[in-house]
């Protein structure tokens, strides 16, 4: 995967899936998510992540709970809701379907 700009739209669309995947593994707070994405194709900043988290929460895919932190104020720890888990599974299936469609479309040499 290249980080070339022409794939920017593709990556942007899939960022939601990437975030849901990170959250699915364990309860995390926003800075953890950024750290997990760091170095991957989905590397991003707070400016993009925070509005995305707020939307996912509004759509009922994520929820958060406050937890005390040893350094500084309490933090929001994000976890998947049942709907979020369902959506992640659905999206992953759909992505597999898309990939296999793309394989068969160009003949069988892909």
């Amino acid at each position, binding site marked *: 995967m290249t980080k070339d700009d022409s794939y920017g739209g593709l990556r942007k669309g899939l960022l939601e899936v990437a975030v849901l995947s990170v959250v699915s593994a364990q309860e995390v707070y*926003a*800075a953890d998510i950024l750290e997990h994405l760091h170095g991957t194709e989905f590397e*991003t*900043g*707070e*400016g*993009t992540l*925070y*509005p995305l*988290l*707020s*939307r996912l*929460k*509004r759509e009922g895919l994520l929820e958060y709970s406050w937890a005390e932190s040893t*350094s*500084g*104020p309490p933090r*929001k720890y994000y976890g998947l809701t049942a709907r979020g888990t369902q959506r992640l599974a659905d999206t992953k299936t759909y992505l597999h379907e898309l990939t296999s469609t793309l394989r068969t479309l160009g003949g069988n040499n892909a």
Partner: protein
Amino acid sequence: MRKVTTTNLNGRAYQLEEPAYEKLQTYLGRAEAALTDNPDKAEVMSDIEQAVADKCDRLLTAHKNVVSLEQMTDLLKQMGEVEGTADEAQTAAAGRPKRLFVIHDGAMFMGVCNGLAAYLGLQPNLIRLTFVLLTISTSGVWILVYLVLGLFLPRAETEAELAEAYGKPLTAQGIVARARERAPSAESMERASRLVARVLRIVARIISVASAIGFGLATFSWLWTLWQVVLGRLHLYDQLHIMNGWREWLTITAAYLLVAIPLVLLARLTGRMADNRRQSRLSTVSESSLAVLWGLSIVTLIAFATAYAGNVRDYVQSHAGHLDVGGSHLCVDDSRCDTNGRKSYERPSSPADPQMPGKPTLYNY
């Protein structure tokens, strides 16, 4: 040494250099604008403030308790612009009133047509063509309208002003979209507008070459006329005597500038249109000085005309309707000229000019 200001980020005080504070403030301002339609705006804003605070915490130690401008720039770059959704950007655009600006970015001359095009939502080249046609049909008077607009309309320089000029929201997407629109991209241009642009470029090229040739002819005539003055062939007599010498030179030069400067400007402007080039800062400066020089030449001509109109009238009256320049007699008042015209008319001779008609003579003052 920079001044330091204290600010409150989510309930804790932080010391920032003033430019760093201003930078943060504009960043948060843009974030807020991008989140206008987000129902969780307050929450997201507070999360973002907290993220800035956390990052500042990491930069500060017991021995370093001020966040510098460089650190803030770096920090905000890491965070990235806060993004609204595309829909939000669209709604914001619809409700936003446009303002008329001069837009230098992508301008051919002063950016008046560019600004009008943005305001009316039309192709800049269309407006330019209209202005050229209006200028031709009003024999040049419309240029004044252009100049007045160019001088008095506010100039859109910041991204915020550009957003206002184009009626688009000041979001990261808006800025990217405008940058894309401004970029000369053959693909994004529609076929018809490409054809119009090509025709316009050809027309511009023709006008450019024609005005360059016109300029060359004007310059040649000017030099030739000055040479005639040197040879004494444009000598003036009696009441017009006073016009000889530097006044004659100046009048001829002012008349030359009056014709030549618009030709130069037209050649340059249309040349730029033909090459699809942009106005540079240097050409703005040189063209403005030419415009000033043009104004001066008009003032000079008007001043001379007012000062010497009486002399010309007296001269024509006392020389049977004729005006004498060097060796030629011009009938300028038919009611006074003799029916025999030139034959019965003797060129006047002044005390300092006792010689034959047509013979070059120079007065000494």
